[in-house]
């Protein structure tokens, strides 16, 4: 369904793109299609209605229709309005200064509260907080056991109390946090159908008893049209601060959950996608808008693509270094990596004793750049096989780079020395990489062996000496 929907939307847009000029009828057709697409994505009917009305109005603007690329403008407006719908800015979890901070989770049955509680605890733990989980769901059989098991897996203390009175458990939980020096308390409440008056009163009572700093509502991404009623009821009774969307790893588009922002004005703070405790991510409205429109989450995609590409390059490079088969491309790559990490100065100063060396003026920042200029004047073949460099080639390179031939000679000499040095300390590095295999080697990747990986300060100094003189 996801694919067909995404195709459909792309179909709408490409249909528009095929036209040089757009008429009002074209826009009307497109809006009808978009309306249907959004409804299939479970966006609330009323939200869709006002969304389509707004978008249509903007699209029918004379400037859009008469522009050179009307279709693109329409796509942009839709994306724009959708982002608006989801919230302009990212909404992060901000803890107040009170200790212990209390975060209360509410939501329907089966929405994933208990799992979300554990994930949130894990996340807070990563951020150097000491969370405490409090199990206030005394109704579902074994709910507290579930929380205790999850807490045990992530190494977070769980307070269960007597398993009878949720309000008392919550209050005691906060006291337990104080006694055990925990700075964040996460209260997992019983799931409810919002029509359940008794349960709602209990949530209010817990709220009144522990005065939570944050109340987060957990919403299943697969929920349909009814979700806005549920959210409105929760907003009225317990006035939550934000939403955690769960089960985002399925193919649900989460349209229902996304309508919450429009209906209640409460932002989505996290999306939860998976069974593992580390699968709670911050929510980015703009990226989600693209996902709904089937445009793909380009930013995330690019981010990961870049990461992968880098890993590939590094792996290749590391392997070449392992064989001590360095070429001049590696030199450039090393230089770039150093620059990415903030330049050689930052790199050196981050190493033990580095600051001293910097102060003593032993480090020449420009040396690497200078080298790169010379290498850039070489042909591909020359970079890969430096032994090709004869007298006439060196003269050509010197002219191209605007340096003298001795400078090119010096570079080649430095390169050969580095290569020799690599050969010397690579066996040691190989051993080290072998030791790490258990963890990294499984994925077929080797630990990066370039700078600053396997080098000690002495090695770096040596390299630096060779380069800077």
């Amino acid at each position, binding site marked *: 369904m996801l694919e067909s929907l995404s195709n459909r939307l792309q179909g709408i847009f490409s249909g528009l793109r095929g036209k040089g000029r757009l008429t009002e009828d074209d826009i009307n057709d497109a809006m009808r299609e978009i309306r249907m697409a959004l*409804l299939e994505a479970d966006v609330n009917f009323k939200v869709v209605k006002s969304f389509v009305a707004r978008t249509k109005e903007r699209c029918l603007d004379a400037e859009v229709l008469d522009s050179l690329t009307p279709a693109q403008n329409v796509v942009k407006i839709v994306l724009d309005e959708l982002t608006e719908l989801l919230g302009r800015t990212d909404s992060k979890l901000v803890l107040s200064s009170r200790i212990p901070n209390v975060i209360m989770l509410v939501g329907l049955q089966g929405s994933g509260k208990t799992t979300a509680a554990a994930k949130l605890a894990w996340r807070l733990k990563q951020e150097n907080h000491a969370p405490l989980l409090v199990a206030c769901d005394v109704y579902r059989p074994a709910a507290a056991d579930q929380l205790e*098991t999850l807490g045990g897996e992530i190494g977070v203390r769980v307070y269960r109390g007597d398993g009878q009175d949720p309000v008392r458990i919550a209050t005691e939980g906060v006291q337990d946090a104080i006694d055990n020096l925990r700075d964040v308390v996460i209260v997992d409440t019983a799931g409810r*159908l919002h029509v359940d008056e008794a349960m709602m009163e209990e949530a209010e009572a817990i709220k009144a008893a522990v005065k939570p700093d944050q109340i987060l509502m957990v919403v299943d991404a697969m929920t349909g049209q*009814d979700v806005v009623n*549920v959210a409105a009821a929760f907003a009225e009774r317990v006035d939550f601060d934000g939403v955690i969307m769960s089960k985002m790893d399925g193919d649900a588009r989460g349209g229902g959950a996304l309508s919450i922002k429009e209906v209640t004005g409460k932002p989505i703070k996290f999306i939860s996608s998976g069974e593992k405790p580390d699968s709670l991510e911050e929510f980015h409205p703009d990226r989600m808008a693209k996902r709904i429109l089937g445009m793909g989450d380009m930013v995330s995609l690019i981010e990961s693509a870049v990461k992968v590409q880098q890993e590939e390059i590094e792996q290749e490079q590391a392997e070449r270094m392992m064989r001590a088969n360095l070429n001049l491309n590696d030199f450039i790559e090393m230089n770039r990596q150093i620059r990415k990490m903030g330049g050689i100065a930052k790199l050196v100063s981050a190493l033990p004793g580095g600051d001293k060396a910097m102060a003593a003026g032993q480090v020449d920042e420009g040396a690497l750049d200078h080298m790169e200029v010379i290498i850039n004047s070489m042909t591909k073949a020359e970079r890969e096989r430096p032994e090709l460099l004869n007298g006439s080639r060196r003269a050509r390179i010197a002219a191209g780079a605007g340096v003298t031939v001795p400078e090119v000679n010096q570079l080649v000499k430095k390169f050969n020395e580095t290569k020799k040095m690599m050969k010397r300390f690579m066996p040691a590095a190989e051993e080290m990489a072998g030791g790490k295999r258990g963890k990294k080697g499984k994925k077929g990747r080797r630990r990066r062996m370039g700078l600053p990986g396997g080098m000690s300060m002495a090695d770096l100094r040596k390299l630096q000496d060779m380069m800077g003189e």
Partner: protein
Amino acid sequence: MGLFDRISEGLARSRDRFKEQMNVLLDRGPDLDEGFWDGLEETLILSDIGGGAACEIVEGLRDTAVRKALPDAYAVLDLLNDRIAETFATGGEGVLSGGPAVVLFVGINGTGKTTTVGKLAKEVTDEGRTVLLGSADTFRAAAIEQLEAWAARSGVEVVTRERGSDPASVCYDTLERAEAQGADLVLIDTAGRLHTSADLMRELEKVVGVVRKRSKLPVFTVLVIDATTGQNGLSQAREFDRALDLDGVIVTKLDGTAKGGIALAVSHELGLPVLKIGVGEGLDDLKDFDAHDFARALVGDFDERG
């Protein structure tokens, strides 16, 4: 208490809301104007039956209204009632109330599989049949304890293994025990999983495969779906059906404000009968399903209209 009353009771809330909306429609007068059709479409969409299906139903009714020269909105709503009821697939009597059988409950996380198994165990035991439960949800924390708690409430036996063990082996044990005891009905709870998770779906295929191979009784697979689920429910049902060849659907959590329109879509598109509906948290809150009653309870019946 008649069948209709029992369902009505559970669906009262859903029905009230639906009727409320229908009344708003009807207050516009019985004329079949644009406003009426738009309103009808909106009401249907809000019940989660899906934009496409709602559109189709409204267009169909519109045609019929013109052809048959239907006088007013009431006549159209009558037709609607029948149409909804007809759209549900029929059959499935042999799954839970037929002869001895093994039934596996599958679905995504949090739809109420374990709870449904617990309630069914009670209902079937009350009918005098011998029931054995199998807890093949060895993944979720405390799923086994939850099922054990349910089993204790209805006084039936449950076969378990420690958490993290192979679900297929639990099923095997369950079947062996069932044969030894001569159990009538074996209900197996499986771990919830998203239909998009290829690995977990394969695991489930294996579990069901083992059961089908080992069992001497007929084996059925039943999808448990949450009434609050939106259009994604269709995608869930499709995937589970493709992997396991489902025999029926159980809709849970119909006691909320959600109307469970997705059940209609699933039942219609995949030809799966709705076997039971869950209308509450009590031990007795699993009701029989009847398409006409469901439709009537959803739309509201005639007498109460005026």
